[in-house]
């Protein structure tokens, strides 16, 4: 399959880019990087000069850049991320702990956005220029202009500080989901709604949409049988691209709400220059994007036979 091949190349390239970026980050580490990496592997108590020298030799920290970089990439492609420089735990294990929390938050947010956005967008798109369409344009433009951190801040101020309805931070209970998920979902819904609206307006104006009604189908039957399926293709494709926005939101929102997920960990890792953790999480996010989009490619290929060809 050509499309899977393209995604495979994309995944490989993502890994190489992340490898290059984290390699540069490692080389730019202040102080004795070898000592810090050795400490991450063996624990601060067990580090001596010999261990640091061994790391130095292995990673070629003092040697020429190219062999060291290839060595670094080799480790990465074997999915050998090493140990966190901060906790000393294997990076894989750390990510395994945090991934669940992030995935559940992201899933709730996407679900919320799908409940809010596309239905409104489709209704607006059925009557372009109508009342709902104009109101939706104003609301979605306004929401799109609010970055997720600002949305989180506003929600905290209103729902948590002023009305004392919901906790501003914490993790575990269902009510802890509401604020961070909403902070993510509102922006996503604004964009989903626009995509659905534009797709519906475009499809509603196509000859086949009129022809279905000329055959004698009611507006409702036409929408259910010919409208929704056609709208779903651009909507799904866009959802895949939106994954990047979602991940950026997750990083920021987790940091704000103290959510124990991968995004929170990433911000910490960057802050403390924990290169192996940065590499692991970044790769996880990048490959997540490729994976989701590969799945969406397959699904839209099933719905739209023209794409599979």
């Amino acid at each position, binding site marked *: 399959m050509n499309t899977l091949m393209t995604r495979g190349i994309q995944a490989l390239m993502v890994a190489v880019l992340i490898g290059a970026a984290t390699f540069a980050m490692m080389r730019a580490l202040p102080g004795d990087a070898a000592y810090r990496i050795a400490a991450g592997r063996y624990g601060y108590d067990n580090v001596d000069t010999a261990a640091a020298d061994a790391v130095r030799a292995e990673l070629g920290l003092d040697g020429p850049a190219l062999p060291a970089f290839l060595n670094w990439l080799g480790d990465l492609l074997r999915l050998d991320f090493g140990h966190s420089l901060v906790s000393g735990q294997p990076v894989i294990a750390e990510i395994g702990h945090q991934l669940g929390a992030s995935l559940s938050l992201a899933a709730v947010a996407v679900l919320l956005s799908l409940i809010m956005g596309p239905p409104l967008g489709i209704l607006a798109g059925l009557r372009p220029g109508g009342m709902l369409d104009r109101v939706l344009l104003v609301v979605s433009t306004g929401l799109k202009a609010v970055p997720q951190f600002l949305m989180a801040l506003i929600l905290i101020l209103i729902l948590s500080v002023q009305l004392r309805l919901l906790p501003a931070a914490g993790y575990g209970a269902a009510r802890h989901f509401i604020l961070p998920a909403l902070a993510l979902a509102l922006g996503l819904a604004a964009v989903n709604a626009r995509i659905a609206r534009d797709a519906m307006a475009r499809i509603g104006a196509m000859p086949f949409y009129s022809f279905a009604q000329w055959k004698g189908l009611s507006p409702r039957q036409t929408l259910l049988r010919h409208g929704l399926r056609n709208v779903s293709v651009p909507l799904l494709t866009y959802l895949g691209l939106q994954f990047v926005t979602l991940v950026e939101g997750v990083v920021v929102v987790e940091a704000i709400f103290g959510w124990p997920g991968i995004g929170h960990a990433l911000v910490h890792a960057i802050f403390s220059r924990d290169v192996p953790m940065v590499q692991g999480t970044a790769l996880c996010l990048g490959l997540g994007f490729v994976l989701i989009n590969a799945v969406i490619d397959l699904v839209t290929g099933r719905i739209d*036979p023209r794409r599979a060809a």
Partner: protein
Amino acid sequence: MTLLKADDITVAQGGTPILHPVSLHLEPGEPLVILGETGSGKSLLAQAIMGTLPRDLAARGRVVLGDHLLDAARPGGFRPLWGRQIAVLPQEPWLSLDPLMRAKGQVTEAHHLVRGMTVPDAGAQATADLDRLGLAEAGMRYPHELSGGMAQRVAIAAARAGGARIVIADEPTKGLDAARRDEVADLLLAELARGGGLLVITHDLALARRIGGRMIVLREGRVVETGPTATVMGAPTQAYTRDLIAADPENWELRNRRPAGAPVLTATGLAAGRGGVRLFSDLSFDLTAGRILGVTGPSGCGKSTLGDVVLGLAPPSAGRMSRSAGLAPTAFQKLYQDPVAAFPRHRTLGRTLADVAPRHGEPQDRIDRLMPRLGLAPVLLTRKPDAVSGGELQRLALLRLLLVRPKFIFADEPTSRLDPITQKQVIDLLCETATTEGCAIMLVSHDPELVARTADHVLSLAPAKASEPDLSGPRVKLAGHLG
């Protein structure tokens, strides 16, 4: 018993009438043809009768359909009749089928949802319908896997599945070549023979002649002439109708054959393909100044590819294309099927033309001298390409070519989007150009009559060895990728 009667139908846009009162009636077994050029109001008339006018247009008049009495001013009343009383055949059927649904499903759903059959019965009926139209294997295909002709037949089956007796076909041959045009006419007549009424809206004289029955000729929103089709076309009483009939390539006078002039190009053993399909091979011809070589053949046979090879835009897969020595690199030019797409969109035509002249050492006033010769008003130069009519723009395209004094013009279906009278003007100008400029022309057309009466020699390309499924008809374009 009259199937449909429409009295004093008018259409107005913001108070300005754009269709003056028209009355018509439709009898069982007798087709009615509404003939007119672009802007004649023929499609508006059909839309008013079906209740499908765009919202900013207001219709008036009375429509009697069986025992239903309808007011054209209230289009909502027509909706329950769609599919049940009136079957509407859309302009471009390959765009009128849901691209994500298999062909049979689109027929089945009408039997099921409109006529109220159970799903298995509806499916069986749909299979029977498709079989009858010779589409037994096409049922499981998606619209993009159907040829234009097949999509046309699926659309007919789907449109009539609701049980409608009246078929309204709006420009059913738009975008089809001559062979397919006759196929569609026969198909419509076959449907008519099964009982019911047929209303055909067209600008295509050949289609009208084949459909027969009675005819209404419209021009600029007014009825020009009515009567039996054979009478109107054989002995038109109005000047406009006479011009229209005379513009039909079938009625053109034969162009005088030109003596051979200086050689311009020689093709030896040309072959080319596209996407792994061999389009033509072992093609040899030569062309001399002042002569016209007509090229015909069904859609997809490689006419445009041949043009690319002759113009040097694509290499042949075998053979040799040679230009005569001493010709300027710009001596070979092309006239496009869609002139709007051949000009820069964002520039006025005057600027575009003014850029060309000095580049080839031509004085600017050559444009001013050519304009009246091609029947063009100077005001057109201040406009952008999309604000000029198709016929005018094609003449401006010809003018642009003449500025570089071409020795060869490849004219790729230059009039297929024009109305008959305009088409004749453009072809006449092209013939004149061959003579006065001493220019060799390759004229591509899907219309064998046009070519036969214009060209000095004719090159007929056979259909490409089409692999199944037959994709020779216009295909649905894949929607653009997001991003």
